[in-house]
């Protein structure tokens, strides 16, 4: 073991931290506690670090914004079940009335974001600002929602999703609809059996995965292109610098040669003038 300037036999910093946090081996902490009785330096440092911990405790993180999406049987459900925003909307849209048969689905992605409607719904006012509780309640009722897209989604993604959702809805058996569906009206929630919800969620997940993979590939390609461009530009810059440097060297050499010639002429003139008979 080593001895520190304060006389503690051991790793002083380790022991101090272990004592500060009351973590680590009990024997080590007891040994340091005994040392504290005789060492003002360590007592002072320990007090200062405790003060830092008191200040750290005052830094609180903001609360995460709760996101209610699907109205499941348990009531409030977390955002994770609905994946990215556009997939959340698509999945939420499926909680809709099918009492009269297949819903008229319409999926649009435009400047105002992703909008998913059914034939049952009336468009919401585009200028109306929703509060968070209102939005949560409306999602529960599956009204159409326009959201700012969290990631790029192609039109073919949406068309494919629409087709698959229609197929899934067609597969919903009338008996299960009778058992679980309620009359659709604005603000009224409706429940599907868990199996249907699971299947629909699986479809949405697959589309999300495919879209993400495509975006990652595009990003990798673009990064590669940028790197190649940067490298080519750098090479061109180096060539220019090299040429400029060579030009400078040449000019300097020429100048030096001229000066040497001027000196030689001067020397010749001086020599000749000295030889001129008086």
């Amino acid at each position, binding site marked *: 073991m080593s001895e520190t300037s304060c006389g503690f036999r051991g*790793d002083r*910093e*380790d022991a*101090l*931290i*272990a004592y500060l*946090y009351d*973590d*680590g081996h009990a024997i080590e902490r007891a040994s340091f506690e005994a040392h504290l009785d005789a060492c003002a330096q360590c007592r002072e440092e320990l007090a*200062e*670090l405790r*003060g*830092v*911990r008191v*200040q*750290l*405790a*005052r*830094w*609180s*993180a*903001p*609360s*995460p*914004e709760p996101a209610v999406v699907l109205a*499941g049987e*348990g009531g409030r*459900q*977390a*955002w*994770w*079940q609905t*994946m990215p925003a556009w997939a959340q909307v698509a999945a939420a849209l499926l909680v809709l009335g099918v009492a009269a048969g297949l819903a008229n689905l319409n999926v649009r992605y435009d400047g105002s974001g992703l909008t998913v409607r059914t034939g049952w719904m009336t468009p919401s006012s585009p200028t109306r600002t929703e509060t968070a509780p209102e939005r949560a309640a409306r999602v529960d009722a599956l009204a159409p929602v326009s959201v700012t897209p969290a990631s790029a989604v192609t039109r073919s993604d949406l068309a494919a999703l629409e087709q698959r959702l229609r197929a899934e809805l067609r597969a919903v058996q009338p008996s299960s609809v009778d058992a679980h569906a309620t009359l659709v009206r604005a603000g009224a929630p409706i429940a599907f059996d*868990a199996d249907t919800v*699971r299947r629909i969620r699986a479809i949405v997940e697959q589309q999300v995965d495919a879209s993400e993979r495509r975006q990652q590939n595009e990003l990798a390609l673009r990064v590669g292109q940028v790197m190649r461009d940067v490298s080519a530009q750098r090479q061109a810059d180096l060539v220019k610098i090299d040429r400029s440097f060579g030009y400078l060297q040449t000019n300097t050499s020429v100048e030096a040669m001229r000066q040497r010639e001027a000196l030689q002429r001067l020397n010749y003139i001086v020599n000749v003038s000295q030889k001129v008979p008086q």
Partner: protein
Amino acid sequence: MTWTDEELVARSIGGDADSFNELVLRWERPIYALAYRQIGREEDARDVCQETFLRAYRALSGFRGQAKFSSWLYRIALNLCRDWVRRERRAPVVQAPEDVDLLDLAATREPSEPIEDLVARHDLSRAVERAMAILPEEQRTAIILKEYHGLTFQEIADLVGCPLSTVKTRLYQGLTVLRRELARSEAASAPRT
């Protein structure tokens, strides 16, 4: 009945979506807090938090229970935070605006708390946030995991993949830097006489 994390994981793997929902509700706030303190931006921290649970959901079938579920989640979140920092190529941002909206601030006030104390508390919180942003990533991570998430030295060592003594060294060095920075900040904000 309160299920343990491991029981909820097993039920989730068996197809019970409500069980994973319960895990999310249980761990959403700590994971978000971890991400926020690492990154410094609310919106990016929210994205990291969501991505953490998405990845956990997708990889759940591969979770064998070698470590605690919470440690597994923390590791995913820390990796995502590290990726964010490297991608952004900068230290965490101190997001709190210079001009504080007193109405927003007053909304967080305790009923009996004088407004002067509220402003002081806010200033101290920002000073801590600024000081933490100066720390190297490994020291900041160690302090966050110890101070705000109550992990033991060994748990931190297992999570970040370093020796136990290294964790203690990082904590000591980080706290020493914070002590200096907070003292400097306090001196700078003290009224001049």
